[in-house]
Each structure stands twice: as structure tokens, then as C-alpha cells.
């Protein structure tokens, strides 16, 4: 059996286990065990992956297994990973692991909560290991839909509205995407042969130019909506604001990465000519996104809104870098995906912890938290520093790779765009420090807060896992960068030819 299938099987078993669980406590423990196993297995997978590479295996994809599923439509269950998917899998398992621990105290419909959460994660895992557009799309939707319940049931504030808006916008995105995918499918055999959903095969066959020009926008925007592409990002602030902690974490941390990954793996990789022809337009959009999100974040008062806008900015940077279409920028984009995934998950985890204690997310209602809940606060500062790109934390590595890479494009347009995008690092600093200043520092504004308890063990575990990951990437980025870069040469070759 393909070891990759374990990535789906473990969560599936966990879900089954939770379903059978007798009480809340058992459900919790089973989820924790399951997701720990998943995390462990991802490490094992990483090890195997390295071993394979070390042993001289230079296949584009490894652990490939192909099973014909619908023979008449040539739909396959084709799985396989390369360095990019490998790192995304790591990201997902880390965030899910942390997410389970952070939601330790969910009391209402606990079993259902964990099942939905893990179902979401399963979708993400499946998406990342799929090499067939059909299964990819299937897992994509599997990942999106539990959001509705998760936000709607366990969320806060105008949760129904937000959940609905998020779901509909993302599904609207998948509407575009579906058209794009079908277009790809029906043009996948321009030179004869059977139509196919097989990613690698399509890349090999190439799509006719007219088809590319028509379907690229569908596919790119379709994925881009999930990647918070301006102006289709508005689901993000509302959605995050209402979502329960772990869901925000998974969503911003992992699910939004599906967008970027898809934009690259599917839209750009399969339709290089169109990507080249239309990059300018999307570069403008993403550049706007980067700056706009950052400026938007400055004015917000709700912690989650701040982080959501910041995500818009950071995810904009991902797409921005992808569109630069060179090895360095693309590596940067992938690094940024991982880095943003980890730090935004950390952010949301911490916001959840703060909200759980103070019952507000309005920064001007709080103050001086550093004194009362130092552990959470310190983590928050770290997350903030990672977000504004402090060296030694992951954000810096990603952003610098992006900027250096983007600057390799010699024409004025790309350079001006790069410089504009660069300016976001200042704006980011402004809103991060503003929040830190108002929220954590200064005198304690509300005397009730003096009795708050600092993070519990499970919260600490969740937060520290994320922080350590951020630091590892920040301090020793080379292995990750190489892991991500390794498949890029071939892919970019496709893109530039």
C-alpha cells in the first residue's frame, strides 16, 4: 500500500474512534492521539523522503501510486509527493496537532467538533498528496465544507452570517475552479491520446494556447479566492473573526495554503503560457493585496480582524511571488506559505487563549496583559515578530527570499511592484507593534484581569509546538529551502518554456 494513504487513513480512523468514544474526555484523547500519530508519521515520511532522495532517486514525484478509479473518464486515484507537498504535509500536521490541543476545552458537542476539525484536515492532506485533478478537487471541497459547521456551531459573534459568507464565497471560487479544471481536462489531449486528469501527464502533454488563455483565469482566481486574492478576500476577516480558535488556525494556517498551492501546481504549472501572458494583471492585484491588507489591518480593533487582514497581506505576497515565476521567488512563496501557516496559526491560537480569558477581542478593552498572562503574551510577541519578519523567525526567511527573487526580474514593472510589496514590512511593523503596545504592554486596564490564569498545559503545548517550528525554520532555513527548491527547477522549466 502506498504509505501516503496513511495520511488519510489515520485521520479517518481517528474520526471513527471519536465517533465511538464514550465521553468528551475520550474523544479529546483520541483526537490528540490520532493527530500526534499523524504528526509522527509525517516526520517518518519526511525521513523516508530524504532517504529516497539520498539514495539517488530523482523522480519528480515519489511514493507514486496509481489506481484507475473511473476508467471511462480516466479518473485515477493517483497519489505522490515531492518536496513541496512534503513540506505542506508537515505544515498541516503540525497545525492540526496544535489545533487539537488548543481546542482541548471545547465543551459543546465535543465529538462533533473534533470530527469536523479532523475531517477538514483530512481534506487538506488528501489535497496535498493528490496528483489527479479530480481527487484534488474532491479533497479541496472536503476541506472547505466542514468550515461551515465549525464556524456556524462553535463560532462566536455573527457566526451564521460569517459561516455562510465564507462557505459561499469559497464555493463560488470552486465554481470557477471547476470550470477551469474541466477545461483543462478536455484540452488535456490536444495531440491525441485519452483525456486525463493526471497532473503530470497533462503537464507533459501541454495545453493548447487558446485553452490556456481561457481557462487560466478561472483556475487561478478559483484557487486565488481561497488564497485571499484581492478583491475576493472579504470572506477572510468575517470568517476568521467568527471562527473558533482551532478553525481559524487550520483555516488561515493550512486551508488558505491550498489556494496558493493550487495556483502554482495547477493553474501556473499546467498553463504556463497563459500564466506569462496574464501575470501582469495578477501581479497588480496581489501587490495591491499586500499593501492594502497591511493598511487595512492598521485600523482594525478586533484582534482577529487584524490578523485576518494581515493574512490577506501575507497571502497576497505568496501569490505575488509565485507570479514572479523564478526559482528564488517561488521558493520564497512556498516558504511564505509555510511560515505564514505556522505563525498565523500561532496568532489565532493565542487570540483564542486571550479571548477565552478576557471574553473580548477588542484591543482597546484590554491592556497590560503581559503582566497577567506572560506566557501567552510572550508567545504573542514572538508571533508578532515573526509576522513582521524578524530574522531568526520564519517570516524573515520567506520574505527575503521573495524580495530577492522578485527583484531578479529586470523590468521596471516587476521591480516597482517588488518595492511596493517590500514596503509592507514597515506597515506590518506598524500594526503589529500597535497591537502589542495596546494589548500586552502598558498598565493593566481592567482589574478583573489581574486574576486571569496563564496558559494551561495543553495550550502551552500547542503554542510551543508552533513557535518551535517557526524558530527552526527561522534559524536554519536551508534544509527547508532546499526541500522546496528541489522540484522547482523542473517545474519552472515548464513555466519558462
Amino acid at each position: 500500500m502506498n504509505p501516503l494513504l496513511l495520511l488519510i487513513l489515520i485521520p479517518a480512523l481517528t474520526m471513527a474512534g471519536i465517533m465511538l468514544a464514550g465521553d468528551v474526555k475520550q474523544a479529546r484523547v483520541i483526537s490528540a492521539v490520532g493527530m500526534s500519530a499523524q504528526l509522527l508519521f509525517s516526520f517518518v515520511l519526511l525521513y523516508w523522503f530524504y532517504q529516497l532522495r539520498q539514495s539517488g532517486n530523482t523522480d519528480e514525484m515519489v511514493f507514486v501510486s496509481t489506481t484507475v478509479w473511473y476508467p471511462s473518464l480516466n479518473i485515477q486515484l493517483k497519489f505522490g509527493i515531492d518536496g513541496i507537498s512534503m513540506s505542506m504535509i508537515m505544515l498541516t500536521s503540525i497545525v492540526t496537532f496544535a489545533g487539537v490541543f488548543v481546542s482541548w476545552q471545547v465543551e459543546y458537542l465535543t465529538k462533533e467538533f473534533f470530527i469536523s476539525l479532523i475531517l477538514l484536515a483530512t481534506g487538506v492532506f488528501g489535497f496535498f498528496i493528490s496528483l489527479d485533478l479530480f481527487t484534488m478537487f474532491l479533497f479541496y471541497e472536503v476541506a472547505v465544507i466542514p468550515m461551515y459547521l465549525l464556524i456556524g456551531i462553535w463560532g462566536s459573534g455573527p457566526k451564521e452570517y460569517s459561516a455562510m459568507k465564507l462557505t459561499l464565497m469559497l464555493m463560488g471560487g470552486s465554481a470557477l475552479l471547476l470550470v477551469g479544471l474541466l477545461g483543462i481536462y478536455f484540452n488535456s489531449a490536444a495531440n491525441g491520446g485519452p483525456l486525463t486528469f493526471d497532473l503530470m501527464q497533462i503537464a507533459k502533454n501541454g495545453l493548447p494556447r487558446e485553452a490556456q488563455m481561457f481557462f487560466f483565469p478561472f483556475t487561478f482566481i478559483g484557487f486565488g479566492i481561497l488564497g485571499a486574492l484581492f478583491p475576493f478576500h472579504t470572506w477572510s476577516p468575517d470568517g476568521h473573526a467568527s471562527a473558533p480558535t482551532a478553525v481559524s488556525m487550520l483555516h488561515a494556517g493550512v486551508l488558505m495554503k491550498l489556494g496558493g498551492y493550487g495556483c502554482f501546481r495547477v493553474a501556473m504549472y499546467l498553463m504556463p503560457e497563459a500564466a506569462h501572458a496574464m501575470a501582469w494583471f495578477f501581479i497588480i492585484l496581489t501587490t495591491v493585496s499586500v499593501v492594502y491588507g497591511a493598511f487595512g489591518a492598521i485600523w482594525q480593533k478586533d484582534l482577529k480582524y487584524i490578523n485576518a487582514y494581515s493574512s490577506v497581506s501575507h497571502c497576497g505576497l505568496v501569490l505575488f511571488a509565485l507570479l514572479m515565476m523564478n526559482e528564488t521567488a517561488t521558493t520564497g512563496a512556498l516558504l511564505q506559505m509555510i511560515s505564514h501557516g505556522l505563525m498565523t496559526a500561532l496568532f489565532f491560537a493565542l487570540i483564542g487563549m486571550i479571548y477565552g480569558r478576557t471574553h473580548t477581542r477588542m484591543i482597546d478593552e484590554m491592556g497590560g496583559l503581559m503582566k497577567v498572562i506572560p506566557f501567552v503574551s510572550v508567545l504573542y510577541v514572538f508571533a508578532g515578530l515573526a509576522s513582521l519578519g524578524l530574522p531568526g523567525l520564519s517570516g524573515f526567511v520567506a520574505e527575503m527570499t521573495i524580495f530577492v527573487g522578485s527583484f531578479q526580474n529586470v523590468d521596471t514593472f516587476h521591480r516597482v511592484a517588488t518595492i511596493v510589496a517590500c514596503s509592507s514590512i514597515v506597515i506590518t511593523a506598524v500594526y503589529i507593534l500597535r497591537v502589542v503596545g495596546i494589548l500586552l504592554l502598558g498598565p493593566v486596564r481592567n482589574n478583573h484581569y489581574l486574576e486571569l490564569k496563564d496558559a494551561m498545559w495543553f495550550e502551552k503545548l500547542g503554542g510551543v509546538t508552533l513557535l518551535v517550528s517557526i524558530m527552526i525554520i527561522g534559524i536554519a532555513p536551508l534544509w527547508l529551502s532546499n526541500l522546496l527548491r528541489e522540484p522547482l527547477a523542473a517545474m519552472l522549466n515548464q513555466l519558462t518554456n
Partner: protein
Amino acid sequence: MTWNTLFIMRHEVLLTLLIMYELLADLSDETNRTRMVNVTIAGFFLYMLAGFVPSENAALFGGMYVNDELRVLLKNILSVSTFIVLLQSSGWAKSPIHQGRAGAFYLTLLSTLMGMFFMISAGDFLMLYLGLELATLPLALLASFDKEFRRSAEAGAKLLMSSAVSSAVLLFGLSLMYGIYGTLQMEDIAQMNLNSDIHTIAIIFFISGLGFKLSLVPFHLWTADVYEGSPLPVTTYFSVVSKGAALFTLMLVLYRVFRYQPEEWRMPLYTLSVLTMVVGNLFALRQKNMKRFLAFSSITQAGFMLLGFMNFGRIGMTTIVYFMLIYGLSNLAVFGVLSIIVRATGKESMDDLNGFYSTNPRLGLVMLLSLFSLAGIPPVAGFFGKFFLFTAAASAGMYILVFIAVLNATISLYYYLLVVKAMFINKNETPIPSIQSTFYEKLAIGICLTGILAIGFVSQLYEYIQGLM
């Protein structure tokens, strides 16, 4: 007339026997409702099993009646659906107010089913028309079956009036067809490739007649009123079996008979599809009554079904049948839960569902899954059904249509989620109390659920259907 003929016609023959039983039971003033229901269900079950026995392809009665493997499959799909309807209606039929009514009910219901079989098996437009009438007239009576309620009476009258017009229009089309071809034998017509304005008119009139049964916009207006007014089992039957029969018939005729004139029916269906999806969705958005809501939802679904017709080949037919199967099971599951609720409480408003999950988690979950299936959300079967339909449309290069369809699927997701929201999210002081469902109801839901969960993953089914085309 040999045994073999009877065997080939086993669906119709066995149904006739069942009908006879019902007639006798009705006439003999059978008072034991429970036994009657049980016998009917058991009999139907046996009949249904017999339907699955493979038989040879044949054209009987000088080509009036055709049966082949595909048609057997289609009939079996309808049989299974009807079986589920029977299971679901068992509680309804056993209730005291239906004293002395079950016989009439089953008799009418089964004769409509037989009418549908004749529609499917028709080798001649005469049979098709006959089948259509047999499937429609008693249905109008069924819609009025709850004699106590004014709404039910209204539903029956509305259905009859409008369906009579629709069948008149269909007949007018058929008469023109007769004038053009000189025959109504499908086999003969299929040999000829004629094109003319009058042919177009004939085809459109024909499509409209079936489109009426299929609830395509603008021929759909009866749907919501009739669904809402009819007794719930009848509504279920309408939305799945009756619709399925119309769809299958339309498919068989268009693909098999008018195979040389695809352009003449594709464009009308394109237009109807867009109209149906959009209008169905727009109406479904604000419905509060579950039956009415499901009526519009089923209208929208019919719009989706038309996407399959964009492809002239095997893919088109396959996806249509496949989707209908999945849609049927999903809808039946929704109605199954609804029927349990209605049986236990008589409530059928969406607001009554508030907080449903807290008291009836299992039923809530079933409802959730089946709504997701209707909305086309993976991993439940609806996703596969929709995806393949879109594939069929896209294969004809109709990407704009696909896009419109997917957007409409998104809108439809909105209102399906409204139900989910009611059940899972909305709070309610006095939610529907925990309901104990009967064995029949459980069985019905079990069949549907198995189908919804498994069909997508068992690709053999799809391949099997495709093999029949």
C-alpha cells in the same frame, strides 16, 4: 404470448398482480391496515427483487413494448425508489385516519408506477402517451388523497388542470410528428433524419410535455403548490419517481429516437436548463415550508439534470442516469427524515427544525449528509453526480453553461445550509422531541444512506451504467 414474454415484462406483470391484490383488499373492506401495509411492502419487495433478475432484450407487441438492460435498470431505479417511498409511507398509511384507504392509495400509486414503466418501455409514442397519462391521472388523485385538507384538494385540481394542458400540448406535438414521419413507432422514426420547422415545433412541444413532469421552468409552476398540498409520501413520490420517469423517458426519446437531430433539442434544453436552475434557486431561497422548499430544490436539480443532455453521446446518458439515481437517493433520504418528523409531530416548517440535532442527532446527521449530497458536496455521492454532469456539459464545450450551473450549485448550497443551520446551529426552546423511528423507516433511510455514501466510491456502478448505453 409465452412465459418468456411475461418474464420480459415481469415489472409490469408483477405490478399488475400487486394492483389486483390492492383492488381485492380494497373491495373486501380490509380493516387491518397494518397487515395490508406489511403485505404490500413484502409483495413489493419480492417484485423488486424479481426486477433485478437479468433478462434478455426484446421488443414485444410488434415493437410497442421494448425492454433491454438499460430500461430494466431504469425501472429498477424507480422500483427501489418506490420501495423506499412505501417504506417511508408505512407509518402514514397505518395511521388511523387512513382507515380503509390504504388499498386505494397503493392501487393508484402502483398504477402510476406502471404507467412510468410503460413510458420507459414504450416502443411507440402511443405507449408513451398512454404511460404518461397512466402516470399522471392517478397522481392527481393521489395529490388530493388527504381529503380532509383543503390544500390537498387544491393540489390535485391544480395538477390535473395543468397536466392536462401539458399532455394536450405533448399530444399536439405527437400529432405533428405523426404527420411528418407517418408513423409513431420509435424504431422507424429513429431511422429517419428529417429536419424542418415543424419538426422543431413537434420536438419542443414534446419536450414541454415531459418538461412539465420534470418541472422545468417555465413549465414548473404547479410543482411547488402540488408538493406542498399533497400528502408527504406523494410529494416524495413526485419529486423522485415521477421526475425520474420523466427524465428517463425524455432521455430515451431524445437520445434514441431523435438522435439525428440533436441540435434541435440541445438549444431548447440549454435555455430551459439555465432558466430552471436560476428560477428554481431564486424561489428556493426564501421558502420556509420544507415541502415547498424541497419542491424548488427539486426544480433546481432538474435544471442540473439537463446539463447531461448537452453531450450527445454515452457520457451524456450515463451521467443523466447516474445523477438521477444519486439525486433520488439523496432526496429520498431528506424526505425520509422529514416524513418521520411529520409522522411524529405533524410539523413541516423549517423553523420547526431549529435545534433538531440536539434531540435527534442521528436523523440530523442523515439529513445533513443527504442535503450535502443534494448540494454536491464531497465525499457524498451528490458530488460525483454533479461533477459528471458538469463533465458532460463541458465535453460539449458548454463552459458558460457549466459556470452558470456551478454558480447555481453554490446558491443552492446556501439554502441547503439554511436547513443545516436550522438543525445544527439555531437554538430552540422547544425543539422537536426525540423521535423513535420504526423499522421500515430505518430501513428506508439505511438504503438511502448506504447509497449516498457508497455510490461515489464504487466506480463500477458508473461504468456499468455506461456499459448499458
